[in-house]
């Protein structure tokens, strides 16, 4: 497993470089938007990766609630954190693309608003995890994650069922795409998925290490304070108070 991480890291760098090259120099230029449409190769794969990560978070949260498995809790935390990073990319690149194409940075359109709500739900999840010390925190966070996951299909299908400013889906739905563009889009998605996997892996290892350190610190403080406290707080029977 120790060798697999650097191998995946090298593969990811190569794949991201290749995907970048394809997106900038090989992909055909879109007729109406021109080169700015190439933002699509970063914006859409980032959104799909965020959705996958939020789905992983949902499954891990349900598993944690069912089995109280600490590893499932760690996976839920990691996938939410990396998912928020990808969702941030979506919320930043979207307006940068919208400005030259729609003439506005933002509109309170259903797709955009629901994506912002999704981001806010998972940011609140991370804030809960960061600032609450209660033993109930993982349980509460898992419940919040399940509600958060309900927003993912709403975001995805909002452009299928409602008239929105946002373009139609490129796969299925009412939209269509040049096969060469679709091919390059999928290469970029693969590259970003490998990158997400790599970052999740590193973050998971960090989380497990953090838990080990906290456990060791707690044990150390117990060993240091324990005997002194027990002397101070448990009076000898028969001794006047």
């Amino acid at each position, binding site marked *: 497993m120790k060798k697999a991480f650097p191998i995946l890291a090298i593969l990811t760098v190569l794949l991201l470089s290749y995907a970048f090259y394809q997106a900038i120099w090989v992909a055909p230029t879109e007729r109406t*938007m021109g080169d700015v449409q190439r933002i699509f190769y970063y*914006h859409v794969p980032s959104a799909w990766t965020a959705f996958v990560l939020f789905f992983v978070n949902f499954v891990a949260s349900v598993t944690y609630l069912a089995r109280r498995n600490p590893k499932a809790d760690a996976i839920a935390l990691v996938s939410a954190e990396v998912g928020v990073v990808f969702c941030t990319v979506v919320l930043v690149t979207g307006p940068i693309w919208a400005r*030259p194409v729609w003439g506005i940075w933002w509109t309170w359109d259903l797709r955009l608003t629901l994506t912002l709500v999704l981001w806010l739900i998972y940011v609140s999840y991370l804030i809960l995890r960061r600032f609450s010390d209660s033993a109930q925190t993982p349980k509460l966070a898992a419940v919040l994650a399940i509600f958060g996951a309900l927003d993912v299909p709403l975001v995805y299908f909002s452009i299928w069922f409602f008239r929105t400013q946002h373009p139609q889906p490129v796969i299925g739905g009412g939209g269509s795409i040049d096969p060469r563009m679709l091919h390059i889009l999928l290469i970029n998605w693969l590259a970003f998925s490998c990158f997400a996997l790599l970052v999740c892996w590193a973050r998971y290892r960090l989380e497990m290490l953090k838990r080990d*350190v906290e456990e060791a610190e707690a044990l150390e403080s117990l060993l240091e304070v324990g005997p002194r406290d027990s002397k101070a707080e448990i009076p000898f029977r028969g001794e006047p108070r």
Partner: protein
Amino acid sequence: MNAIKYLYAAYIATWVIHGLYVGSLVRRYQRLRRRMSQLGK
């Protein structure tokens, strides 16, 4: 449409966001290593 600057901005913003996050992971890891070395003493 002369909008190439928006393309650059989007690609740079993407890697700045990812870079900041990876940087935060490295800082958190270094902090943990320090705590571990203090525990070892």
